[in-house]
């Protein structure tokens, strides 16, 4: 468990230069409002998904908007929690605590969008 609303929860990953170059590297930002139950659930779910599908090729940055309200404007954040996939492009936005793993995987393009069910 993190002590603080971790702004930069880093995961072990290859060196910076190599990471930038990789086309399948995932740069993720998780926006939350304080460390409430929902924020923690989102972070736990995100870590689980990343460990399972993106081992060694992702970075998670957690941004607490209560601490840094200015940052909400840039990524057009409305709902919280919101996960923004900055890389690979195009940018994707996932709203919610990521408890619906299937939708989260589709949103991150880790599963094809073929099964268009509700």
């Amino acid at each position, binding site marked *: 468990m993190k002590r603080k609303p971790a702004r930069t929860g880093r995961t072990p990953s290859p060196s910076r230069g190599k990471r930038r170059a990789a086309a399948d590297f995932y740069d993720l930002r998780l*926006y939350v*409002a304080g460390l409430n139950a*929902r924020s923690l*659930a*989102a972070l736990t*779910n995100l870590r689980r998904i990343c460990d399972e599908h993106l081992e060694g090729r992702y970075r998670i940055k957690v941004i607490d*908007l*209560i601490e840094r*309200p*200015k940052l*909400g*404007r840039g990524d*057009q*954040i*409305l*709902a*919280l*929690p*919101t*996960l923004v996939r900055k890389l690979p492009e195009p*940018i*994707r*936005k*996932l*709203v*919610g*605590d*990521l*408890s*619906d793993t299937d*939708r*989260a995987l*589709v*949103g991150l393009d880790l599963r094809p969008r073929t099964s268009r069910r509700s």
Partner: protein
Amino acid sequence: MQRVPKSPTGIQGLDEITGGGLPRGRPTLVCGGPGCGKTILAMEFLINGARDFGEPGVFLSFEESIEDLTLNFASLGLDPRPLSARKKLWLEYVRVEPNEIQETGTYDLEGLFIRLGHAIDTIGAKRVVLDTIETLFSGLSDTRLLRAELRRLLTWLRTKRVTAIVTGERGDGQLTRHGLEEYITDCVIMLDHRVEEQNATRRLRVVKYRGSPHGANESPFFIDDAGIWVIPIASLGLQHRVSPTRVSSGIPDLDAMLGGKGYFRGSSILVSGGAGSGKTSVAGYFVDAACRRGDSALYFAFEESTPQISRNLHSIGLDLDPWLRKGLLHIHAERPTTSGLEGHLSVMHRLMTELQPRVVVVDPISNLITVGTSAEVRAMLARLIDIMKVRLITALFTSLTSDDTAAGGTDVGISSFMDTWLVLRNTQVNGERTRSLDILKSRGMPHSNQVREFILSGRGVRLLDVVRYEGRVLVGSARAAHLEQAPAAEPRAARRERR
């Protein structure tokens, strides 16, 4: 009853209808169809607040980017940039893109709260606009959650003690598409933009105002480069200043008929008559007299061009050119069909604001009937007269009537708005046409009840006593012949004329 504290909008007419503005520290719903003027009303509320009432404001735009918004408003003369540069105004675009968002579990709208709260705290905002918050429903699918969050947002706005405008698009069978009126119960204003017989008319109605009496009528409004302008119908003609000062009609004989002094300043004068009966001449003398006094005059010509008016008046000894050159007289010539009634009213309003005339002529109002129904023309004139009375402008309106109806009523039936009504008539007697003038009414002054013969010549306008002989009224050459024979019976005015 305890009075609801109010925040003035600074929008002409709206504060009058609402008895002082919107409920302070509470949200107001402004709703209506697309293009009805919601965003403009909201922005003007913020700009006026920041500029004139020391209340900084936050504008959250859910539909237009700040660049687009700024450009649109700059073109309307409501440029928000100077105020936002001074941190009196905060404009922020909240983009909701339907296809960009994947929902993966529970969430709330805390992000929106935080952004809005940050904006409010940064500039110390007292006013907030959310335009149009219902856009959220197109981006997020959990309607139940959104409704709950909207309710929470509005409660939160009340605790922030900001006076807010929340706009909403008109919905089927309800005021707004997503029933915002359920959450915003303090004040609801509805705007409407309809087109009738090719004329666009905008109307505003206060549907609800908790704890405050308000006008329930629909009030027309228009948008020009001075912003929104609402005409409270109910106030018509009841609370104006009145002036005991008199102004000359420019025709000494007519002044004599009007209690010896002419019209009241700030009154409305109707000059009706058939084609060629001399209406424009009466108007011409009126503006000439004004300019001679040093009063600026504004002439709206709906029939003739400026050179045409000037040339024609030359023929009766009037030269308006010096006044035009000096800038004392401004003639605005326009075909009635170039715009709708609202458009004309808007132009008139703008010119009266710019030029601050003391005297205005509208020549003729009967032409406006080509662009509106007579009820609409009547309503428009009522508003026009209202504007003029407030500014203490003496206004002369000409109206073309067929000779038969000249006495009965004008086509647009507006005589009740008029303080003085002059009727000009063409009469044909003994194979010649002569003109006559009489004063049908003139409120608040003794005036002549006689019909006078109205002579237009290169030397000006004269009004002669008519001559009665053997029960007949003698005019024109019959009068001249009669006077030749009976000089003793010659009336004074006629004697003067012959000299």
